[in-house]
């Protein structure tokens, strides 16, 4: 899952990025509105965390311009909590709204819900045969047995599970699993898929030669 955080307060940005990376998200950052808009247009993020008060281009404007071309889910962070402001944010195309100061667990839960909703899921558990993925607790069980996964492996599994039935290309996986700061080996995806197959069973993830991977 790849996220963009647009926030001008460096300490807050650093804290958010750390918290999100710890959850296995790949996180890109932008310190102002213009750069935020550029990155949001350039990359297909799974979600954008957007502060309202930004230098150069404020959150409202960024959102309005982004919505001309993309429907990336946006969670807005704001210091204004009047219901009129909330209505304005939601009307402008924000998918959720979080008022500062917030608890990190709440932000994470809202992001999960946002990504789940965008993928057309309403429940926090995904059932694939005997495998059950709990997206809230980030745990996976296979035939009732807990499966231990690394953060990356979990994110890869969750992404494929959320797009169940679709063929997900390696490029797409790269885009969503790694952020701009990471220089990755070209076969890292294959390594993760190999490890997942080892833990979940060989047939769990199908390889479509020349296309990508798929959970059926």
């Amino acid at each position, binding site marked *: 899952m790849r996220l963009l955080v647009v926030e001008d*307060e460096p*300490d*807050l940005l*650093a*804290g*958010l990025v*750390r*918290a999100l990376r*710890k959850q296995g998200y790949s996180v890109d950052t932008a310190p102002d509105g213009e750069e935020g808009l550029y990155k949001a247009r350039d990359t297909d993020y799974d979600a954008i965390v957007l502060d309202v008060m930004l230098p150069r281009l404020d959150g409202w404007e960024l959102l309005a311009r982004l919505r001309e071309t993309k429907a990336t889910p946006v969670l807005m962070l704001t*210091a*204004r*909590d*009047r*219901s009129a402001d909330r209505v304005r944010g939601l009307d402008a195309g924000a998918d959720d709204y979080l*008022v*500062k*100061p*917030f*608890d*990190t*667990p709440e932000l994470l839960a809202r992001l999960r819900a946002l990504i789940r909703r965008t993928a057309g899921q309403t429940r926090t558990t995904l059932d694939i045969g005997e495998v059950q993925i709990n997206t809230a607790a980030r745990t996976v069980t296979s035939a009732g047995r807990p499966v231990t996964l690394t953060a990356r492996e979990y994110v890869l599994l969750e992404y494929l599970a959320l797009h169940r039935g679709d063929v997900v290309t390696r490029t797409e996986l790269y885009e969503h699993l790694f952020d701009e700061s990471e220089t990755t080996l070209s076969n890292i995806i294959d390594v993760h898929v190999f490890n997942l197959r080892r833990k979940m069973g060989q047939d769990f993830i199908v390889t479509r030669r020349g296309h990508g991977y798929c959970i059926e």
Partner: protein
Amino acid sequence: MNFFHSIRWRQQLWHGLLLALVLAGFGFAAWRLRQRDEMRRIDQELDERVSWVVRAGAALRPLQDRPPPVHPWPPQDGLPPDRPWPGDHPAAGNPPPDMQQLRLPEHEANLFDGGPGGAFYYIAWHPDGREISRSLSAPAGVPHPAWADSPRGSRLRGTHRERFHFPPTGDCILVGRDISHDLADLRRFAWLLGGAGGMVLLLGLAGGWWISTRALRPIGDISAAAARISTGDLTERIRTRDTDSELGQLASVLNATFARLDEAFTRQARFTADAAHELRTPVTVMLTHTQNGLDSPCDNEEHREAFEASQRAGQRMRHLIQSLLALARLDSGEAAALRAPCDLDRLARDTTELLRPLAEEQGVTLEVELMPTRCEGNEEQLGQVVTNLVSNAIFYNRPGGSVRVKVSTEADTAVLSVCDTGQGVSREDLPHIFERFYRADKARASVAGHTGLGLAITKAIVEAHGGSIEVATELGQGSSFTVKLPL
């Protein structure tokens, strides 16, 4: 308003009193003038007749060859007693044998035959006191006038006005008239004056009432506006039509004062809101980083404690910011908007259910008794009221105690009451519990989530909804908060 302390009534009283005095003085003067004129006119008529009678008597004198035409004046004793006196009417009773009839010209004689103003009469006395002659119209028992300093005099005898003359002959001529008609006229005139004066007084009082009503109307406007302002609507101003009058100037001065007050309040509320806003981002930074620190594996117990303490402090600041903003918003009157009908019972049920885990944690049982009740209000704020009251009731309870939440409709008010079995509020604390940052239980002041603003916010919300909040408490027995909201 006290009748005697009302400016209008006092003004009216003095106004009426002055007007009555002026009217009475004026009326009395007019009556006196009229009376004097009447008397003078009557006296003139009488004098005229006196002269005729004197002339008629004098004309006879030479024919009688006695006494000499000119007598020394005043008449002396020793004048011939049998001096004849002419007259055309014999005196009443037995006329003296030598009584003469006075002969007046016909025209003048008619003047003694009565008329519209009552009959004139004359009586003539001989210097020795005998009646020489009298007109037919003369009443009986007219006494001889006493000699005064001058040969002429007048007197009022009952309703008879009489003029008398002592001519040089030494006789005494008296002409009189019954003036009861004139007196009645005067009385009628007095009544007329009284009536007219009364009418004028009434008109004056009505006019005074109208004027004072007009003059005092701006004061009424001012006090009504001030009353609205004192209930919290600082945007209210006194509306004056005339700005140049004294009251208009007063209104302008008051308006300027209200504007400054309003501005000061707005500034204060805005400052609180701005300060709280500015705190949001740093507190978020603190919460995010301490949470990250807590989430990372950490072997150092001291670091862990530091993160935990900072996290708790951050959470408290978060609550404080929210509370301060809520109060600033309520102070600025912004919260009055967004009213809609809402079900108070459903609101109370939902909110209480959310607090049930907290109650269980504290070992307190929650009881609800909810009647369907609809009231007009802001659902979010009313939910806050229920949350604050119920969580206070849970928090300040004893283990094993209970909290009872009741919603009902009484007359035209929606009533929400929250009763607990806690330690109650002491007499010293009771007047202050709705004050900002006041905590009755100072020992428990540092528990997260209790900012000391909860009841202040609750009261502000309830009052913004036009309702009232009351507390009944007994130390050691528990407290009961009752919120009344208009339907």
